[in-house]
């Protein structure tokens, strides 16, 4: 075993609370894999962790260019962390483009580990540096701690007897980097070795070469004088004991749907069409056949949702997942699900829009579409997840509401949550809320006629599925007569049905938890009201503002339609409400419209998440203004 706690030389190990690292390189450099592997190792130490990959929209953007830069950022800490870090402390730059694209987000005094081969004349030119300029040599990085490392050369040296082709050897350079970072943060190597052996089960040479590259990187850190002054770092673990797994938001959604079906005793059906950044929900569920999950990759977005409506009619827990352009295509079918009053979970992983927009970048700009994007009066519940792990609870909750209230539910996540990951303490089935489908019992000939649209006191109709004797009935998209469900064009009936459908959704407010204050005083100067993936940035900013003595609180909305019943009361307890959103201001309209108050908006529409610093500045500005 490689002893990672001892060094061959005496190198200082400094304990740190928290560090944010960026692995950046060309999209062919394997940075996602390196970052993921590093994150797995960090997680197994019990350290708090949050990761975020940032890669180009193109599969193979021109090598060496800024457009081709792929990054994987993570923050790990002895304290809870909610974001991958507003800025990073350490940046691995495999080439000049990676450095150029990310330098602005590196802390002053931060560490740069630069792969020198990526800074040759050709790479510098591709990255757009002026002729003759090389940041590794011209002193322009003097505000940072720079380590130029001939990563490629060292990897080749280490693997020259591996028997691999030179191309294969070069591809192992990311493992060298990984080993070096393990040394720097006194992390163990064994887990990675196991992963590599499992991954290259059929190619032992490849596994061993990769392992040798990891070790070479590790020993390079240990043996070279380069890092002697810097020393090594140690981040103490924080997590309580227990069983954990690391999940991305998309994985969490997939697990939640399967779990909800298990809990409800239903079969899961997912009708879907691949779309970035939502596809992993489909691909993850396609691998869950062991749990009886049926996935259906349809010919288009419309067939994705409509096949799910068919499955819901048949009594399945039916779901569809998509992103903005796909949700737009599904809107007509959503109206059908509303009028049929069938349960359906729609997960919309938001991305920058309109149109194709920024497919790989997060935005919170589909809130209006989720709320209002249907023809006719077609209200449905809208809920939003706030973290990768919360994607599990939110999707599960969407399924609960859908099944118990016989309605389509839109669960909003975004590209940031979808791809970010964090450790999740494995949930016990017993802790999950019950989900109780109400199937209508078979009917005997002497029973009163079956009324498909007869409602209970929650305005919910029963689920009458084919195969149930005596319940043969016809329903459809045409307006239906109250109770009988027969086609009806009667004016009063249409108004009644429209109101009943809306009332059913509004009454869901009686079956969801009250809004809580996440942090801060129950009354005060400022309430930061967030929704969705901005949770981490707001949480961190508000924590810091409270530490600095400001009277500020944070509430984060999961239920956007209907709102929790006490929201108005909460909003009344602060002098000012601040609503940060990754859009041009959408929740703020809904809050204003519902409660007739004047909150202050704070928007960012750059395809990147908020960072805690920008929110903190906004908070302090507002409170100073309130006090002046």
């Amino acid at each position, binding site marked *: 075993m490689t002893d990672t706690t001892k060094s061959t030389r005496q190198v200082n190990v400094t304990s740190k609370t928290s560090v944010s690292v960026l692995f950046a390189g060309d999209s062919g450099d394997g940075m996602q894999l390196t970052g993921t592997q590093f994150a797995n190792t960090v997680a197994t130490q019990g350290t708090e962790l949050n990761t975020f990959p940032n890669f180009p929209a193109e599969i193979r953007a021109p090598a060496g260019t800024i457009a081709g830069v792929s990054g994987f950022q993570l923050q790990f800490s002895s304290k809870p962390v909610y974001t991958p870090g507003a800025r990073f402390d350490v940046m691995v730059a495999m080439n000049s483009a990676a450095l150029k694209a990310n330098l602005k987000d590196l802390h002053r005094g931060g560490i740069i580990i630069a792969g020198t081969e990526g800074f040759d004349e050709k790479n510098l030119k591709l990255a757009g540096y002026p002729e003759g300029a090389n940041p590794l040599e011209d002193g322009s990085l003097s505000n940072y701690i720079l380590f130029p490392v001939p990563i490629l050369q060292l990897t080749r040296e280490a693997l020259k007897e591996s028997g691999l082709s030179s191309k294969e050897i070069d591809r192992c350079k990311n493992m060298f980097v990984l080993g070096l970072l393990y040394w720097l943060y006194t992390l163990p190597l064994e887990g990675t070795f196991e992963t590599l052996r499992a991954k290259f089960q059929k190619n032992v040479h490849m596994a061993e070469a990769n392992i040798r590259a990891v070790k070479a990187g590790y020993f390079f850190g240990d043996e070279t004088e380069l890092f002697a002054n810097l020393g090594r770092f140690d981040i103490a673990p924080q997590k309580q004991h227990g069983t954990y797994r690391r999940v991305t938001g998309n994985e969490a959604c997939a697990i939640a749907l399967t779990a909800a079906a298990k809990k409800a005793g239903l079969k899961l059906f997912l009708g879907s069409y691949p779309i970035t950044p939502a596809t992993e929900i489909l691909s993850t569920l396609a691998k869950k056949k062991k749990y009886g999950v*049926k996935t259906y990759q349809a010919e288009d977005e*419309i*067939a994705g949702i409509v096949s799910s409506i068919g499955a819901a*009619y048949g009594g399945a827990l039916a779901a569809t997942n998509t992103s903005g352009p796909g949700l737009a295509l599904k809107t007509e079918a959503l109206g059908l699900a509303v009028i049929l009053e069938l349960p359906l979970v729609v997960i919309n992983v938001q991305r920058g829009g309109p149109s194709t927009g920024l497919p790989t970048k997060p935005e919170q700009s589909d809130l209006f579409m989720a709320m209002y994007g249907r023809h006719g009066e077609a209200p449905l519940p809208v809920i939003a997840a706030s973290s990768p792990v919360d994607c599990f609870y939110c999707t599960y909750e969407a399924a609960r509401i859908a099944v118990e209230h016989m309605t389509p539910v839109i669960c909003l996540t975004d590209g940031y949550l979808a791809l970010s990951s964090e450790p999740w303490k494995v949930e016990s089935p017993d802790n999950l809320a019950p989900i109780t489908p109400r199937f209508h019992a078979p009917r005997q000939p002497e029973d009163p006629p079956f009324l498909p649209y007869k409602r209970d006191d929650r305005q919910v109709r029963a689920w009458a599925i*084919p*195969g*149930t004797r005596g319940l043969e009935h*016809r329903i459809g998209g045409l307006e239906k007569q109250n109770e009988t469900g027969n086609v009806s064009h009667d004016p009063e009936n249409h108004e009644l049905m429209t109101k009943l459908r809306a009332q059913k959704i509004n009454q869901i407010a009686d079956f969801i938890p009250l809004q809580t204050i996440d942090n801060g005083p129950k009354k005060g100067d400022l309430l930061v009201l967030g929704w969705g993936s901005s949770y981490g940035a707001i949480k961190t900013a508000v924590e810091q503002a409270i530490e600095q003595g400001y009277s500020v609180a944070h509430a984060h909305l999961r239920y956007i339609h209907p709102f929790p019943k006490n929201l108005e009361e909460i909003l009344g307890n602060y002098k000012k409400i601040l609503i940060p959103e990754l859009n041009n201001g959408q929740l703020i309209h809904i809050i204003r419209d519902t409660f007739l108050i004047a909150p202050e908006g704070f928007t960012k529409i750059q395809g990147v998440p908020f960072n805690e610093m920008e929110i903190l500045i906004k908070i302090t500005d507002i409170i100073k203004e309130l006090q002046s």
Partner: protein
Amino acid sequence: MTENTTIPVLPVLIAKDFASDQEPKWCPGCGDHAVLQQIKNVLPELGIAPENIVFVSGIGCSSRLPYYLATYGVHGIHGRALPMATGLKVSRPELSVWVGTGDGDALSIGGNHFIHTLRRNPDLNVVLFNNEIYGLTKGQYSPTSKIGLRTVTSPSGVIDQPFNTAALTLGSGGSFFARAFDRDGKFLRSILKRAALHKGTSLVEIYQNCPIFNGGAFEAFSSADNKANNTVYLEQSKPLIFARGKRGIWLDGFQPIVVDLDKEGISSSDLWIHDETDINKASILAHFADDHADSEESLPRPFGVFYAKERITYEDALTAQIADAQKNGIGTFEELLRGDQSYEIKKA
């Protein structure tokens, strides 16, 4: 899912047991009435309890079909009956799932679903009412309208090449295609029954007259004289003979040729023998419709089963994959939540 879905003892049912309490709202003289009647005639013959039958439809005159049948039924949205039926069939393979659709619903707005459903081959019985017109929206041309047809949206005549439903079905990998006629009830009934018994997507194209907006569109095949000369009824292993036994089809390589049985010294054994499992012959039959029944040499319009060859259905293939994934046991709830990459953090 429920445990209460199957009923072992079936009462003997007749056609009127499958009539719902809703009065059909189709125009008088519409071919849809005749199709509905034949569906009601066929259903009792299948031995399937009404609660295990579902009719799914999209939008259009034909898509009102589910309302008039005392089975389960869903009237969906325009063009989307096939994916809805597929989702239902995939999640509930034991149900008998039917689709009522039209030329606009299936071939225009639902064209994409049409081709993809056929290649996947879920076990659906698709009844395509082809009246070569949009009826419900009052008479616009459809993707099967003939070139030159003057309608409210083609005042100078249609210039779009119409779809050849048979060729489209076969080209999409369909496992069953048959054509029938609204006015020939007995034949329609036999074809519907064949379609119902076919395991896989069975596509039945019914020439259905819309007396209001496209009356007489199929006149060339309906009046007694025209019918004899312009239609050929396909029977398995039988030669292609029409015109009251006077003419037949002889296959010269890939070229179908109309031959006069009286004059040319050709006996029926020399003629094309129908083989509904032969995709090549079915494809040639499909293109008979490109001929326009305007001369003695014109190829007749075929009716009957062009092609029927079973292959694995989508739901069976998926069920098999699931069974394989579960061969060492169904995944437990705990296993699901734990995943395969969990790790233990021990007490510090």
